[in-house]
């Protein structure tokens, strides 16, 4: 055991949400090895069986769903959808949003006007409208769910990045490097980004949790990943129709989703405290 661990057990303990998140991510990565069954394998003779049900040597540890699929295997595989969708959409919207925000604040003038009005426009279009249109134009599917989420969320990063960059753009070190002929990408990447990354990380962590919930919401509205792919959101929205008769279908993915979002929220909260700025 290292000295740091021994000396600061309380600080470390405060980071348990990170451990939880790591465990869920590991679960997603190792899904094919962890899951006891094929998550899409149906068995119409074993529909809606309670946890612990056993048939022909197969043990349904967390029960079976409305098509006789193993809930445990689907929960494990569902981690992939939730986490990959959330990570990708946060990355995509973060990169685009931050770039737009920084450029607008740094270059000012007509670039600022055009970009920030574009941000306003996207903020005013209902997310659900964008979702339906994306699915109608590009077709349904996993990649397009990510695209939908990124399309609706990038303006938020743009807003934060814009505000933060504005405050920095007139600082002496930025002016100096500009005067010395540094290119715009260079100034933004080397001088501005490192100084605004903190608050952006906080936003991104909180957005991560939100994206997991959004993906679930899209599934509820029939716009999520394609069946039969297992996703926590899809399992929850189907399973809520079975609460009285087969509580396990929704409860286990619900619990997993809750833990994922909660850990992201707690980490974001903690990061925010560290940086000294709430959202």
């Amino acid at each position: 055991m290292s000295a740091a661990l021994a000396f600061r057990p309380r600080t470390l303990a405060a980071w348990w949400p990170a451990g939880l998140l790591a465990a869920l991510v590991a679960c997603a990565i190792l899904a094919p090895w962890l899951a006891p069954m094929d998550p899409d394998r149906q068995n119409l003779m074993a529909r809606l069986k309670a946890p612990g049900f056993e048939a022909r040597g197969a043990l349904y540890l967390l029960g079976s769903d409305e098509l006789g699929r193993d809930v445990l295997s689907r929960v494990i595989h569902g981690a992939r959808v939730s986490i990959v969708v959330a990570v990708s959409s946060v990355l995509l919207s973060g990169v685009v949003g931050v770039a737009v925000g920084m450029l607008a604040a740094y270059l000012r003038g007509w670039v600022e006007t055009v970009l920030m009005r574009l941000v306003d426009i996207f903020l005013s279009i209902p997310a659900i409208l964008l979702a339906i249109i994306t699915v109608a134009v590009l077709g349904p599917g996993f990649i397009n769910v990510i695209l939908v989420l990124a399309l609706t969320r990038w303006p938020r990063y743009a807003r934060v990045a814009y505000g933060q960059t504005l405050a920095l753009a007139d600082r002496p070190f930025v002016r100096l490097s500009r005067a010395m002929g540094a290119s715009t990408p260079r100034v933004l990447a080397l001088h501005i980004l490192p100084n605004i990354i903190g608050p952006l990380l906080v936003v991104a962590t909180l957005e991560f949790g939100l994206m997991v919930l959004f993906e679930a919401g899209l599934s509820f509205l029939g716009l999520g990943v394609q069946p039969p792919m297992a996703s926590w959101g899809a399992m929850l929205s189907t399973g809520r129709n079975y609460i009285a008769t087969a509580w396990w279908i929704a409860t286990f993915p619900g619990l997993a989703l809750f833990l994922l979002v909660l850990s992201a929220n707690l980490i974001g909260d903690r990061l925010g405290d560290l940086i000294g700025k709430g959202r």
Partner: protein
Amino acid sequence: MGRFLLQRSGQALVAIFGVVTLVFFIQRLTGDPVLLLVPETATQEDIEAMRRTLGLDRALWVQYLDFLRDMASFDLGRSYIRNAPVWDILLSRLPQTLQLAAGALVVALVIGLPLGLVMALTQGRPVSRVIMGIVLAFQSLPTFWSGIMMILLFGVTLKWLPPSGTGTLAHLVMPSIALGLLSLATYARIARASVLDELSKDYIRSARMRGVGTGRLVRRHLLRNAAIPVISITALEISQLLAGAVIVETVFAWPGLGLLTVQSIAARDFMVVQAVVLLGAFVTIAANFAADILYTVVDPRVRLTKS
């Protein structure tokens, strides 16, 4: 001041125009309402005839010019599906949406702000962490799940509240909570941060040294000064509440604008979608505008021209 207002209004109008134009064109990329309107047995000729009746067979730019002309005279057009003026449909849904947004705001403010205050005052103690954990937990459940659970518990098992629908104050309780819980953590966090910020300032320290009690401090100084961030976040939340209530409205059969939006998009009822988006854009921009003005009322030190 006057020039600032003018400039801002001008930019707002441009943004609204952009939104509406964008929505006009992109939603027409997704097909049209005709196939949903006609019976399954309708022939290709029936379908074409219906398309002509609705004017959807015309060139896109002709339809757009038509739309702009109507806009200019504040005519929002007619719903294809309901065959009624869009204005009437919008106005019939607005009160429901406002009620729900108000209810959710009350829930978020009445619970969120005191929790934030308590967290700030107990900063560093386990109480603070526990409260934050609970608040964040509320935010970590999908609404379509927590909503049906509330209905089953309070509506079916305990029979304390009507399970769905509108009409009485009792109907408003569950949807407001379901929607309000989402914003609650935001408020708690903001309240905590701004109270902590104020607590570290000199005037509070000196007041404390003079022996002014916590309760008095909170009432006389803290709340007032912590109000600004709360106002600005409320402006953002209001537009969120108007647009983001879709799932709550679906689960609780609450006929607000969110549900109308989803149903209209699902039916490709273009005119209604455009109108809702237009209204949403107005509200978003107006709320932010109102927030700016409120700052000056709450705290005279802030002047509009500064921004």
